[in-house]
């Protein structure tokens, strides 16, 4: 199960997608928009008024974009409209007043960061986090970035990682943060390794900045069905600094192929890596 959460199974309404190829983005966005329209929700995409490039990829993947645009269930807002000065709550509540069962918003992190600046982006994302938790709102932020192990990190990645603790989707892995750890689902391979490494690095920085001294970072592998050596290396690289300062990486729930990789490649019990 590498796709976005199935209807009714979404853990949180505030998710991010980090993708390398537009095809991956289009597929996930079509799924996101299609699910919303099927449920009778309102869907709002961030795009300039004269930008129609998003329509064809969605229509090709079975989304009735023209029908939805006609009946008003699918609309676009440019960045100033998407991020009104009065705050996100005003926008969201105005849209929910129309009586629809839910609201879906999709935005490009790069455009949002360009418009809001990093501090503004972090503030808005915090507000959205609250709105998604208290109202029938789902927000999908998209960022194009290399996710493979060894890819050059893009400057916006840390802000996007920090803003989406509950579900950060990579091409084939989904990362959920919890205090002092992450939970992984899907597959952790060469293609997602760079993203997981970057998230763990943020988790280590958070833990170091924490007032309470934390000695461990946990990576819960119970719902991971695949990991290759590059994926395992991502776990080690992402925590190398943290372990270098005396921290411990605790791997839990490894089973099947994932357990086999750890068993063969080793690493457990040394250099601050513990298997539980």
């Amino acid at each position, binding site marked *: 199960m590498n796709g976005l959460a199935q209807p009714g199974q979404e853990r949180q309404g505030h998710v991010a997608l980090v993708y390398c190829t537009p095809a991956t983005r289009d597929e996930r966005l079509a799924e996101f928009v299609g699910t919303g329209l099927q449920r009778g929700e309102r869907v709002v995409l961030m795009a300039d008024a004269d930008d129609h490039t998003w329509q064809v990829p969605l229509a090709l993947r079975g989304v009735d974009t023209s029908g939805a645009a006609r009946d008003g269930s699918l609309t676009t807002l440019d960045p100033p409209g998407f991020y009104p000065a009065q705050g996100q709550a005003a926008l969201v509540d105005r849209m929910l007043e129309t009586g629809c069962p839910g609201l879906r918003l999709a935005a490009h992190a790069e455009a949002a960061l360009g418009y809001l600046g990093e501090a503004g982006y972090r503030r808005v994302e915090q507000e959205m986090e609250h709105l998604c938790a208290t109202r029938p709102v789902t927000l999908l932020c998209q960022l194009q970035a290399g996710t493979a192990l060894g890819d050059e990190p893009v400057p916006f990645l840390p802000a996007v990682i920090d803003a989406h603790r509950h579900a950060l989707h990579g091409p084939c892995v989904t990362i959920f943060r919890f205090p002092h750890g992450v939970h992984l689902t899907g597959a952790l*391979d*060469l293609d997602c390794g760079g993203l997981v490494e970057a998230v763990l690095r943020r988790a280590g920085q958070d833990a170091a900045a924490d007032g309470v001294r934390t000695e461990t970072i946990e990576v819960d592998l119970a719902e991971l069905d*695949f990991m*290759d*050596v*590059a994926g395992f290396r991502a776990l080690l690289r992402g925590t190398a600094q943290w372990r270098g300062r005396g921290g411990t990486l605790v791997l839990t729930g490894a089973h099947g192929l994932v357990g086999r*990789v750890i068993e063969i490649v080793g*690493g457990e019990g040394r250099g601050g*890596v513990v298997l539980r």
Partner: protein
Amino acid sequence: MTPYTHEALFFPSSGALLDAAVPWLREGLQVGEGAVLVCTEDNNTALAAALGEDPRVLVLPRAAVYRKAVDAVAFYHDLVTGRVSAGQRRVRLLGEVGFDTRPQGHDEWRRFEAVCNHALAPLPLWSVCAYDTRALPGPLLDTAWLTHPWLRADGVRTLNGAFIEPARLLMGLRRPLDPPAGAVSTVSLTQPGELPELRRWLRAKLDAAPAGAQAADDAVLAVDEVAANGLRHGRPPVEVALWLTPTHVVCDITDHGTGIADPLAGYAPPDPLQLLEGGAGLWMTRRLCVDVATAWTPTGFTVRLTVG
């Protein structure tokens, strides 16, 4: 800590083996070193008796250790590191040829004896490999000469002038790849984002493989690993060709880069602290597969995996 010492001992009779090995093993026990026997059943029994059934002597059947070269390397690596952390200063190991006696077995034994020099080098292990001059065929006795830096005779160690550098010896063991023996399915990759699709494709092909579910799991992991390696260090496209035999899954992974130059790559257990540097993928692949062969063709570099 004394690093690895690798000696060959030629013996014409069981009596001669006991005469040579027992004092050497006893000397080790007296100074707190470990003793391990991995010989024929008869020789194991006779040696253990001659050592007074000392409980510190570990007696192992050869079948428990020798399946293929990397498995034996892993076994000795874990055994020695375990003994060292339990307080032993060094382990003395007496072993006899343990792979099957078919020609493939001869090659694999030669590979094992050669890679030990490199893969076990940092360990405090002193191994004496005993070769029965009456029972063993010529090629295996040649292996003893080619793969041991040291010879042991009359209780004395001497330098072996016939020893050949392991990497050179391994290059000589490369064989051309036979054409596929079965219906071949192929798929091609150009970037890491296609790895999940490759795994789904493999799963579908291997679902009903006669080699079984464990072989299917191992094959998915090994093929992904080699393909990922080709995408990262080789040159795309990476072409995957898969076929099934009644007992095995066989897969050729070809990229267009320069290939793996070091014949010893992937034969040594990765150092957990060095995992960040790479090199662990090929070790895992070798552990998962019955055989890993490599070959250069006019168009590229092929790794052939046999699983099952």
